[in-house]
Structures are given as C-alpha cells and as structure tokens.
C-alpha cells in the first residue's frame, strides 16, 4: 500500500477509485476537465482584465507621476520655487514641471495632425517619469529647443524619422490668428527621437518638446508651466499626499490643486474593474454549471458503489470515514481540475499574442484598450480566489452524495446492491 497511514484510508481509497490501476479513469478525467476548463476561462479572463487595468495604471503613473499639481488650466509661475517647496516634503522623491497643450503638426509631406505637445524639463523629467525607457530611437539628451521626440505611431503615420523636419503651431495661436486676422509663424523643429510605449494614446499623439520651446509655442511667460508632477517614495501614498497638499494650498491661499494619479482616468479604470467583476460573475456561473454537472455524475458514481459502501461499513468503516471518502473524491477532482486549469490558463496567457493574431483581434484591442499587445500582470489574489471558489464549490456539490453514502446502513446498502 502507498504512503497513507491508517486514518488516511478514505483518501487512499478515493484516489484509487478515481484513478484505478490499469484502466483509463473516465469519470475522473471528464470531471477534472470540466473543472479545468471553467478554471481556465475564469483565470484567463480575470488575468487579462487585471492586466489591462494594471497596465493603464502603470502608464498613467509613468506619464503624470504620482501626484500632479495644476492651476485649473492656468499657467503656474514660478514653477522652480514650487518644485523646490515640493522637494522639501519628505514623501517626495522628485518633481518636474511641464506644459501640456494642443498643437498642429505639419510634416514634410504637408500632412497635418492635431495632437498634444508636452514641453518637458529635460533635466528633471526623467526623475519623475520613465519616458526615456521607451525611446525606440535617439536619446533624451539629444533633445533641445530645436529638436523634438515623436510617438512611434504618429511618426509612422506621417512617415517621419530621425532628422525629419516638422512645423508646430499651437492651436490657440491659430484660433487667435483667425479671430484677429493676425499673422503667425510656426516653429520649425527636427525629429531627434522616436518613443514607443505600446499605449496608443501616447504613441499616436505625443510630441515631446523642451519647456522653453513650449513656452514660446504657447506664449507663456518665462519660469511658467501648466503642471508640476512629483514622484513619491511610496506611490500608494499618492491620495494622502495630494490631500495634504490641497490642505496646504488652501491654507496658504494658493489657487492650486493636487490630483493623485489614482484620479486620472478614474471612470475608465472603474469601468475596467467593474467589467472584471462582471466577467468573474459570468465565469463563476460556468464553473457552477460544471460543478453541478460533476455533482450529478458523482451522485451516480456513489450510487454505483452502493455495494462497496455496504462493504466498508461491514469492515468497520465509520459513517464519517465514508463521508470523507466521497468528499475527498470531490476535493481531488477540484484540486486536479484547478491545477490543470491553472496550467492551461498560464499556457494560453503565455501565447496570448499568437492567439490574438490568429483571432485577428489586434485592431479591436488597440481601439478598445489602446494597447498594441495584451499586457500581462498576474494577480495572486485572482488565483487564490479561484482556488478557494473551486474547492468550496466541489466540496458543496460532493456533500450531498457523500452524505447519502454515509447515511446508508451497511445492511441496506448490501441488500440494495444485490
């Protein structure tokens, strides 16, 4: 006999009945597959939804920092002193100011695009956002008042590369020129870098320029910026720190507002989280259906073993042990199904890009979620929740047949079995 001690005989027997020697374990195989497919569907959907949310959060933090300070659209000045005062807070790791505004871009080929330009402090910005990590071509240090960095999709659409010349003019200045019939001169710049983040909102619409160029484009005074963002030592403290800053601003009479990164695209992220929960519920129903189907099969399995139930009673098996025997079968199927389902889910997630390509769903992905590939972030909590859920469900559907078996009188069981 294998490794089990005396009190473990129900588990030993449960294993043997599920996986009989020299015979294909049809019941165990089909039941395990039923659970496994449900678990796979649940884990894949949960992981993909979590990954989208997580990737969005990551990109938001990477583009706006942990906390952003602004003056409700008005320029702030002087931002150098604001940065200095922010750095005095012990929670703050780095601070940098930037100017964000709409511009019209004209390429060499005469194509126009209305996009967002961001004027950054080339020296401080890399301490707050890791934009330089996503540089596909060129270097951050190459950027100066005459050179720009473009998003990869924008560059591709406009057939621009390193060394290409572009013209930029702020949309506000164009509007003013139309109203007042005043002439304006666009700013001519050279492309010195291409950035690729994999996030369409950035790759399609981003033009990085220097802070000085931005001030010139948007006619802002020296030393000003539209926003200042900070990187915290602990990003989870962003909301508390923003609240603290807001309190400080109102006390000192500054008309500034601090916004934590968690408030950025909050509605969208809440929708993703809600979608994840709804999908969890739907997938849960799949597992529920599979479980009850297994419960019904288990009941048949138990009924077919009526004679053995009687025998075990005759040999001295206690009702609790017979209950344990059939509960163990449910748990073994649940555990094996969970393990197999998790393996399948990991495999599918690993080959997700190939599967998306086979399905031809790449464009939908880009349109709906703004990513050119499916991001992957594992949430341990999803795996634990699914494991607990699977085992509890399997235990629940096993209880009825197990109780039926445990409550059979050995004499009746043997008589009924013939």
């Amino acid at each position, binding site marked *: *006999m294998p490794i*089990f*001690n*005396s*009190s473990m*005989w129900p588990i*030993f*027997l449960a294993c*043997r*009945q599920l996986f*009989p*020697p*020299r015979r294909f374990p049809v019941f165990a195989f089909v039941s395990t597959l039923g659970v496994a497919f449900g678990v796979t569907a649940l884990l894949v959907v949960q992981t993909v939804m979590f990954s989208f949310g997580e990737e969005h959060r990551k990109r938001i933090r990477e583009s706006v920092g942990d906390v952003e300070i602004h003056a409700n659209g008005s320029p702030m000045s002087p931002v150098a002193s604001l940065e200095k005062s922010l750095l005095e807070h012990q929670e703050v790791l780095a601070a940098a100011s930037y100017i964000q505004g709409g511009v019209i871009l004209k390429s060499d080929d005469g194509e126009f695009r209305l996009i967002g330009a961001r004027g950054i402090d080339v020296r401080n910005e890399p301490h707050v956002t890791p934009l330089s990590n996503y540089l596909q071509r060129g270097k951050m240090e190459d950027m100066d008042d005459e050179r720009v960095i473009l998003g990869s999709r924008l560059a591709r659409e406009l057939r621009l590369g390193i060394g290409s010349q572009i013209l930029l003019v702020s949309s506000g200045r164009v509007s003013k020129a139309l109203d007042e019939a005043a002439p304006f001169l666009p700013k001519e710049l050279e492309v010195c870098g291409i950035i690729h983040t994999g996030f369409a909102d950035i790759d399609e619409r981003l033009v990085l320029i220097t802070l000085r160029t931005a001030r010139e484009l948007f006619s802002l005074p020296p030393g000003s910026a539209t926003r200042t963002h900070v990187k915290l030592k602990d990003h989870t403290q962003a909301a508390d720190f923003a609240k603290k800053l807001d309190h400080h601003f109102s006390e000192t009479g500054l008309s500034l507002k601090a916004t934590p990164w968690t408030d950025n695209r909050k509605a969208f992220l809440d929708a993703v989280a809600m979608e994840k929960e709804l999908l969890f519920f739907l997938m849960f129903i799949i597992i529920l259906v599979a479980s009850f189907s297994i419960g019904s099969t288990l009941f048949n399995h138990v009924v077919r073993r009526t*004679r*053995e139930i*009687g*025998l*075990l*009673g*005759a*040999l*001295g*098996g*206690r*009702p*609790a*042990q017979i209950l344990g025997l059939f509960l163990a079968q449910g748990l073994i199927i649940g555990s094996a199904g969970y393990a197999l389902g998790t393996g399948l889910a990991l495999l599918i997630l690993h080959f997700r890009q190939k599967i998306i390509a086979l399905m031809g769903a790449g464009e939908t992905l880009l349109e709906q979620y703004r990513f050119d590939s499916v991001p992957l972030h594992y949430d341990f909590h999803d795996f634990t929740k699914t494991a607990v859920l699977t085992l509890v469900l399997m235990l629940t559907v096993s209880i009825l047949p197990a109780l039926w078996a445990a409550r059979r*009188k*050995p*004499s*009746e069981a*043997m*008589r009924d079995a013939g």
Partner: protein
Amino acid sequence: MPVDPQFPRAAAPVLQASALAKSFKTPHGSLPVLDGVSLDIEAGRFVSIRGASGAGKTTLLQILGGLDRADSGELHWNGERVSGRGNAFLANRRARWLGYVFQAYHLVPELTALENVALAGRIAGRPRRETNTDASALLERVGLSGRMTHLPGQLSGGECQRVALARALVNHPRLILADEPTGNLDEHTGEEIMALLLELTKAENVALILVTHNIAFANLASQTLVLRHGKLHDETNGDNPENRSV
C-alpha cells in the same frame, strides 16, 4: 495476535443474542422476520444456519454482526452489550472483532488482492506495515502468494473468495460471519473454499456462523440451526426440528 488489547477476552461467549425480533414494514402491514431468536456462540465453535429463501437468514446474520438493528432483544459481543449502541461504536467493534465472508465476495475492484485484505486492517486502525505483513501471510496461506498484485477482475471466483477469506481473518477476529460463501462457486471450488474456511477458523480458534443452503456443509457444524417462521430450530445430528426452537 489480538488487535485490541483493551477488548475483553474473557471466557464469555463470543456472541450472545437473546429474544431478537425484527419485522419489516410492507404495504400490506408488518412482516415479522425474526421472532424471539436467541443464540450463544462459544469461542472456536462452528454453527450453521439454514433456511428457505426469504426466511431471514441474512437479516439474522446482519443483526448478529451489527450491520442491522433488531426491533427488540439483546445482543452481546464477547460479554459486551452492543444492542442500543451508536454506529461508531458498532463500526469500531466490527472492525476489530468480526470477519465477514459474503456470497458475492465484495472485493473493491480498484484494489489488488493484497490491498483488499490490508484494507480491513487499515479500517481497523492498525499500522500499515503490520497489516501488510498479516495480509501477505494470509494470502500465502490461502494459496494466493503469486496473485497478490492482481486486481479482482483478474482473479477467478474461487480466488476472489480466498481473498475474501483472508480479509475476514486479517484482524484476528473472534467470530466470522459467512453468508453463503460458496453460493457463487462450482461444487469443487465450493468444497475447497469450505475446507479452507474451516481449516483457518479452527487454526485461529475463531467462531464461525455459516449461513448456507448446502446441507452437507451445514452438517459439518457442531451446531446446525434452521430458521423457520422467525424462530431458530436446532437440527444438530438430524433431530426433529419441530419442537426444538433454540
């Protein structure tokens, strides 16, 4: 070697039944099956019970073995009162004290011969190594040393019943209850099994209650009882049964 030292092994009869009664409810009313059955079995004794089909032999055997409960009457195993005790108590005592042999062998199809025999020891809570040693020795004694790793489906009917005999004896019981143990076997194999059963029970000084239709086997017993109209009649040595209810 006895498996449960705390169990009384005094000179009390291994089984005492007094005034056992049992009836079944049917759509046409109550059907009495046992009507005041009393029986004492001493250690090492061999008692056979015969009776017509439906006379209640199996019901009596199940009540004597604690698998079913009598409506009234008293049952003692080895001097210990068991009637009215809980299922767990009965299961515990059955595991350590009684051995069963059934007509249809009742082997677990997924377990090998050795595992089937050892399972009884495991249910009785005995250590694995000790149970395996006893199971192997018993399978050797019943002539199945070369078939220990075979599944029941790979054994003949006679071999399956040998495995069942070994299983009944593996916990060194004081009483074996055998319900038509040769009923599914051909005459020759049945005789072999019967001889083996008697040899083993005699060697181990185990009492045996044999329910059988086979008069020849029944007459081998030191006491031959017949169940008729819910009562046991002693027909030992061919005595007239009519006036000798036990």
